[in-house]
């Protein structure tokens, strides 16, 4: 690495340094999984999928496919009987006995080309006996619904997931706090409403791709576009009965994931094929259409809210009943519904709470992690209900939010006492940016204009003991190599880690390189790149590793100089002594050590720092009441507001401006924090206005960008104000906590509130498409 003299950024934490991954990305030089060349031995995989949402598999005939020249072989559920899953082991590599959603993998084919594999798929005949599908989560939870997983009672799961055997309920999370029935009688205003939030897709620009190879000696290597190399190693090795050390995952840069590349999804298929057809790498790529309906979706939600306040507008009680449309398998989704449960109040202080967060198997696509992990869906219901309640009690929504938002020291619905949070300042910043007090006139006679605000909170959703680790290796040219197991997914984590390491060590940011790709053989362990947890958790590990390296450097110099390490410091890559004012460049010592006086030998040697981090304080929650000492590690909180105009002639919503404010504890890189706020808002806006999987009888009718519309640059407001609030996280590196997911969380509710302000209409089933808005205006007599 060449470091020019004029680009030495010391103490980079809190500075918007240039990202360390941009050059290779904008020039096209960056290597993604599909770019890796495997030579002429590469085989290709395609999959025969279920056309039915729910059916018994009576017969599979792949004899014609095997006769097609170029076909190497097939695999079915019979080859791989083991169950796999992150939080609930409920799915197989290929369907066994029955199919549970349209698009489920039934037969895998390996051939010399992708085209031959695809042609072979068309030659496979599968005979089905159709079963009645479950297409609604509320019905699915009822005793009348056909069972999708009759064996649910036998599935493995950790102790914080609560499946109900002989039902379609794969997790039922409850909170019972205070006395909700008594509280209703104290309420001056009560709002009771049902909201329906559709399935949406992640649509990363890079579709899923994975290549697997099994050596003759049983060693398996998986190259994948993944957020979770270590989780994939753990889950797949266990399901295949091989030691984790024989399973290696290499994870190059990733072209977006937003949660759909977390855990194990389609990677299981090439791995399974490689286990059966050893010795050659096997590649599997999803088409964009498959990306839409065969992979994780953000599950749909039916949320029934009853919320009340006293005559001053103080919240008294909340009843929140959520039916999550978990899809055919809920191995990951059960934890989304748990997160929706323990955070079910939203960032509001409510003394009496009854929550039932119910994860329901349906014959819809498989629900999983999606940026926000349940929070956007939850807030779409809760925050709209709050906006309705504010209107009913006659309070301005901003005043209502400020009056009721959580503050440090509040006892949350789970019994956890929340840390210091800056959400009130976030609300004030957003209101100020939108000139909340001023009612602007519409820009034209055919327009209606309004403003809306909504809040957000989210905690990292993860097992209590999700850990991180890091290595900091000192190089003889004065640079530092940081090894981590967390993934650069576009969020800029490699940049943030370099900043943290540079700050903790005392070297310029430009001298720190973060090594990729992530390789489970060489990279230190990281649970997963999810949950907005890397800056905080991996950042702690990197900081600890850097401090370890720093101590080792100082100990060597102290010994060589006969000084106390306490009198030494590292500044700008030099060890300095405050006592003697001597200094030495670290590059002269971190590999080769320092000579003792009079040629009397050597001190030190190559320096490597190691660090790790794992929260130790998260406790379990009672199965019946949801009460416990500390449900989560922390919450990131914030607010968002929009000003919109509604075109009365078309129903189209135009967002004129937006404001986002979040309490991130400490912004390691303020520009990157702002980018998250802008990007998250735009993704949230997209789901507010355009996005939804149109599922009819289990079939997605719009599985392509032609008919699954996402926001383009033209659909985004020119003005997005962002505000960084910093109430330090007590156990965060330099006080930081995460921001990756949160800005998407309040967007639908904010737009809904603005729509109400503009039109007086509540549309409670996003997306708020032009058609839906126009027809609502028509029904209400606001247009002819």
């Amino acid at each position, binding site marked *: 690495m060449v470091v020019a003299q004029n680009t030495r950024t010391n103490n980079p934490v809190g500075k918007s340094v240039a990202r360390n991954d941009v050059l290779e990305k904008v020039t096209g030089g960056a290597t993604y999984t599909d770019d890796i060349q495997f030579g002429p031995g590469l085989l290709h995989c*395609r999959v025969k999928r279920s*056309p039915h949402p729910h059916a018994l598999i009576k017969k599979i005939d792949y004899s014609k496919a095997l006769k097609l020249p170029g076909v190497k072989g097939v695999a079915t559920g019979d080859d791989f009987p083991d169950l796999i899953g992150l939080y609930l082991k409920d799915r197989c590599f290929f369907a066994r006995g029955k199919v549970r959603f*349209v698009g489920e993998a039934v037969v895998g084919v390996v051939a010399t*080309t*992708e*085209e*031959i594999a*695809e*042609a072979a*798929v*068309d030659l496979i005949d599968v005979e089905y006996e159709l079963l009645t599908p479950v297409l609604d989560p509320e019905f699915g939870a009822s005793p009348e619904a056909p069972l999708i997983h009759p064996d649910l009672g036998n599935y493995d799961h950790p102790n914080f997931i609560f499946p109900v055997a002989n039902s379609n309920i794969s997790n039922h999370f409850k909170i019972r706090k205070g006395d909700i029935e008594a509280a209703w009688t104290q309420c001056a205003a009560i709002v009771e409403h049902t909201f329906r939030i559709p399935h949406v897709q992640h649509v990363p620009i890079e579709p899923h791709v994975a290549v697997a190879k099994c050596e003759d000696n049983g060693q398996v290597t998986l190259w994948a576009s993944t957020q979770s190399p270590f989780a994939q190693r753990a889950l797949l090795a266990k399901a295949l009965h091989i030691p984790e050390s024989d399973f290696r995952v290499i994870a190059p840069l990733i072209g977006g994931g937003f949660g759909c590349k977390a855990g194990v999804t389609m990677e299981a298929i090439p791995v399974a094929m490689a286990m059966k057809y050893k010795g050659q790498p096997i590649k599997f*790529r999803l*088409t*964009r*259409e*498959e990306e839409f309906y065969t992979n994780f979706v953000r599950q749909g939600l039916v949320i029934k809210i009853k919320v009340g306040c006293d005559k001053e507008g103080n919240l008294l009680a909340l009843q929140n009943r959520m039916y999550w449309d978990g899809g055919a398998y809920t191995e990951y989704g059960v934890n989304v519904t748990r997160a929706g449960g323990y955070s079910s109040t939203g960032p509001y202080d409510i003394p009496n709470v009854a929550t039932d967060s119910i994860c329901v198997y349906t014959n819809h696509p498989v629900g999983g992690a999606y940026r926000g992990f349940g929070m956007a869906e939850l807030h779409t219901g809760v925050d709209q209900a709050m906006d309705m309640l504010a209107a009913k009690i006659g309070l301005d929504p901003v005043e209502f939010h400020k009056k009721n938002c959580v503050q440090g020291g509040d006892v949350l619905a789970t019994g956890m006492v929340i840390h210091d949070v800056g959400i009130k300042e976030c609300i004030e910043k957003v209101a100020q940016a939108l000139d909340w007090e001023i009612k602007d006139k519409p820009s034209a006679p055919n327009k209606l204009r309004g403003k809306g605000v909504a809040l957000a909170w989210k905690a990292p959703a993860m097992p209590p003991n999700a850990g991180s680790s890091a290595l900091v290796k000192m190089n003889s040219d004065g640079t530092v190599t940081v090894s981590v197991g967390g993934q650069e997914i576009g969020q800029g984590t490699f940049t943030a880690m370099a900043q943290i390491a540079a700050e903790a060590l005392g070297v310029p940011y430009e001298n720190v390189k973060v090594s990729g790709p992530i390789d489970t053989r060489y990279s230190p362990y990281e649970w997963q790149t999810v949950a907005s947890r890397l800056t905080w958790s991996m950042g702690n590990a990197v900081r600890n590793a850097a401090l370890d390296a720093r101590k080792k450097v100082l100990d060597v110099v102290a010994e060589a100089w006969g000084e106390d390490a306490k009198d030494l410091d590292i500044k700008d890559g030099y060890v300095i002594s405050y006592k003697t004012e001597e200094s030495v460049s670290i590059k002269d010592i971190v590999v080769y050590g320092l000579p003792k006086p009079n040629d009397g030998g050597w001190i030190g040697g190559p320096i490597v720092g190691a660090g790790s981090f794992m929260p130790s304080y998260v406790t379990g929650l009672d199965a019946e009441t949801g009460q416990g000492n500390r449900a989560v590690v922390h919450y990131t909180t914030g607010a968002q507001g929009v000003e919109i105009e509604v075109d009365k*002639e*078309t129903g*189209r919503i135009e967002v004129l401006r937006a404001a986002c404010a979040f309490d991130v504890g400490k912004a390691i890189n303020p520009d990157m924090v702002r980018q998250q706020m802008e990007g998250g808002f735009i993704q949230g806006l997209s789901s507010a*206005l*355009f996005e939804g999987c*149109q599922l009819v009888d289990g*079939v*997605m*009718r*719009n*599985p*392509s960008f*032609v*008919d699954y*519309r*996402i*926001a*383009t*640059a*033209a*659909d985004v407001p020119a003005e997005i104000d962002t505000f960084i609030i910093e109430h330090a996280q007590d156990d965060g590196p330099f006080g930081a906590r995460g921001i990756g997911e949160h800005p998407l969380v309040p967007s639908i509710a904010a737009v809904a509130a603005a729509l109400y302000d503009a039109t007086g209409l509540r549309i409670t089933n996003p997306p708020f*498409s*032009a*058609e839906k808005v*126009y*027809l609502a205006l*028509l029904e209400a007599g606001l247009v002819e």
Partner: protein
Amino acid sequence: MNNAHPGLPDFVEYVKPASLEEASKFLVAHAGESRPFLGATDCIVRMRDGIWKTKYLVDVKGLDGTNQITFDPAVGLTIGAAVPMNKVAAHPAVIKHYPLLAEACHWVASYQLRSRATIVGNICNASPAGDTIGASMLLEGVLRVFGPDGYRDEPLNGFFKGPGRTNLKPGDIAVSVSFPLPPQGNSGRYIKLGRNKLGDLAIVGVTAFGYPDSSAASGYRFRIALASVAPIPLRVPKAEELLASKPIDEAVLAEAAQLAYESCTPIDDVRGSARYRKQMVRNLTRNALVDIWSKIRKDA
């Protein structure tokens, strides 16, 4: 659900004939299993989606002048079949004399796609949603076709038979579209409603065109074409007759928009409901007519 291929199916063969005659003969000899193509922006997608099972894709770009735009102030404009939309929209004669055509081009998909997509392809594809078809019809476009019996002209009014169906027969290759000089003092508008602002297919598209004409009782003539609300790109003769006969004011323009509403027969589909589409035909037709009227009225 159609099973989308990861790439083109492996049975597809690309054919590049050296002349129109050769192309036409090949298409006749392989009728039913071959298609001519230009920018291929629709064709590749349909092949990949498994909607078309065509075996031979016959590349008819660059044959006998299909890459040229020519403008003659005495005769009009001729756009070769293979000229991409970006080139059309940037052509000085198009901008000066046929701005409606340029406006329609701007609404097609994305800039990147328009560097391949062609107007003639858009016309021959005969999608009721085709963005440039309305403008081409209202500007009295005539398609030049080379077929097994040589050249012939196909006026666009009457050319469309149904979604994807036209007067073209196997062996026919559209080589250009020509437009006469438009009437003096004209103005046109294309208003496209998509689900989002950029790159969508039209839920509803309204093309309107008007000009002063002393031979009309009202002193003006208007032409209206509607996209995505009927099996074919739809003209609205009743509204056009009304606007030629009745003295024009806001109420008459609204009446014409109402006639457009009544004449269209949209369907419910994944992009929008018939009910919404009809309403939008009325509102957007009115807006387009009001806008044009403000520009062409002589007392303005």
